[in-house]
């Protein structure tokens, strides 16, 4: 079985983000970019399925600016077999919206014929948490989101989902779209020998137009602001006072 793993190039999670002066978004100039951490987990899961013999080919795909090929190289160095870069924007500040991404991914699925798609549950830049679900709807496939455990059993997948109240285990028909949550696995380091080998793995470059998909934005960003600064705390005089405040003011106990 072939598995498709979409990966997104996002601002590195360690970077302290700055809002652009005009409030139109976050400043991405000269900022360290990395693979979306949830996508890293998705790539790791695909590699583990390949190591277990369930999957025989891992295709990674990234949609965005040309520089996203760095992200694809990282995925190849981790262990993916082949990469597709779909250039859909020239400016790094031009984020492709989930519906356009899902439409492009559907086109890739139609062409590649994978039996499984594993996405990150969301990208840490815009936190949309929509692409996987939209892709599943467009394909008419089942979906298993927020996965913390995945077992492929013949023509079904048994997936444990992280839901608000705890864990939910579902059985879905294959082919399916799985979105990876934080606890699904711990991604490996791209090993040095694999980094050197990644250069020789194929990376196809396409454009959104090649798939006939319109990536024009449909959403308008009204304003981007920094989170409010943390307010100063207070000192309490005794344990009793603390408990009283937690009960009466904070309402947490």
């Amino acid at each position: 079985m072939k598995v498709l793993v979409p990966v997104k190039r996002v601002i590195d999670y360690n970077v302290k983000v700055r809002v652009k002066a005009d409030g139109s978004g976050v400043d991405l100039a000269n900022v360290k970019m990395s693979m979306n951490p949830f996508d890293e987990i998705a790539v790791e899961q695909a590699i583990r399925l390949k190591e277990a013999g369930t999957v025989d080919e891992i295709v990674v795909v990234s949609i965005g600016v040309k520089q996203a090929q760095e992200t694809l190289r990282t995925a190849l160095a981790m262990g993916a077999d082949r990469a597709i870069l779909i250039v859909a924007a020239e400016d790094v500040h031009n984020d492709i919206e989930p519906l356009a991404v899902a439409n492009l991914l559907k086109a890739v699925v139609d062409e590649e014929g994978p039996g499984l798609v594993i996405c990150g549950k969301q990208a840490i830049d815009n936190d949309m948490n929509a692409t996987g679900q939209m892709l599943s709807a467009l394909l008419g496939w089942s979906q298993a989101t927020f996965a913390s455990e995945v077992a492929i059993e013949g023509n079904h997948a048994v997936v444990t989902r992280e839901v608000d109240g705890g864990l939910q285990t579902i059985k879905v028909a294959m082919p399916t779209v799985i979105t990876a949550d934080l606890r699904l696995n711990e991604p490996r380091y791209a090993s040095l020998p694999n980094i050197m080998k990644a250069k020789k793995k194929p990376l196809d470059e396409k454009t959104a137009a090649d798939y006939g998909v319109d990536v024009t934005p449909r959403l308008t960003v009204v304003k981007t602001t920094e989170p409010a600064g943390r307010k100063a705390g207070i000192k309490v005089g005794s344990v009793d006072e603390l408990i009283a405040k937690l009960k009466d003011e904070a309402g947490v106990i």
Partner: protein
Amino acid sequence: MMHFGMTDEQRMIVDTTRAFVEAELYPHEALVERTGHLPMEIIREVQAKAIAAGLYAANMPEDVGGAGLDTLSWLLYERELGRANYALHWTCVARPSNILLAGTPEQREKYLYPCIRGEKWDCLAMTEPGAGSDLRGMKASARREGDDWVLNGTKHFISHADIADFAIVFMASGEEVTPRGPKRLITAFFVDKGTPGFTVRDGYRNVSHRGYTNAILEFDNCRLPASHILGEVHKGFEVANTWLGATRLQVAATSLGRADRALGHSVQYAAEREQFGQKIGKFQGISFKLADMAMELKAAELLTWDAAWRFDDGSVTEADMSMAKLKATEVLAMIADEAIQIHGGMGLMDDLPLERIWRDARVERIWEGTSEIQRHIISRQLLRAHGA
């Protein structure tokens, strides 16, 4: 033409190595710094992870099980490892000496491959109490007796000889007459721990690189068969010069890593710490220090990357490598010192890595050729061109 950016591979090598250093080495630093000892359980645990990540012995060529890195990529990896406590990165993510590649097929089986697999550690013994910068002045000797060689004498400052399984030892094996007077001939030998007549004693406690030990090696009629010779008889320095490679650049690169770490702490502190109602980074007394630290670090990096690139290009000179080593180690000393000045009293506390980066910086200007020897090499190359 010249291209100063990193390739995709180099960027990934840096990312992987940095992530490993931060996740697997930093957490053990406080223990090693405070006790001066790196326990074997930790070594084995981290070593297994380093092997899994392909970081172990990555300096080695691909055909013997290494990563097959070019010199520049290897030094980028060294810079990242260099951020951490030396004992941790040297022991848990060992880079066996390239000189092991000079061995015969039998010697490779016995020494090289086990080092690459993480089953053995090597150490290199040249320095003696009476022979430091003047290595040819060594007294420890090897004399031929029938088919065997008999070793006598003392080596000191031998790094990590306590945990090493064998030593590559350089011994005076004869003398030749040259127009400039008699010159000692040197032969290199593999000596296994446990060989009769070979003793390893604890070395000195020293200010730099806690947990990274040095030892004293004593040879008292230590008898070895000729199969223990590395390279050819009397050609010890030739084998070292051919195979040791860019060890000066390795010192430069690890120094750059620590300098960058100290600078990172300094910038962060200057951006957060407030005195007299403003961030201390707003005071020129602090901000100009940061500017100089960043500029000097970049200068040292460029010298090092240039020498690395020339090393593979075949155009490197001894002076190129000496300049890189000299600049990087002196910049490290300056940055470590200024980092502490920026932090004030807190910089001297071992809650931050700055006091140890400052201590560790001191040895870098001494080992692998003192700053004075490096200046000698650089000036010699300048003067030679004029017949002096």
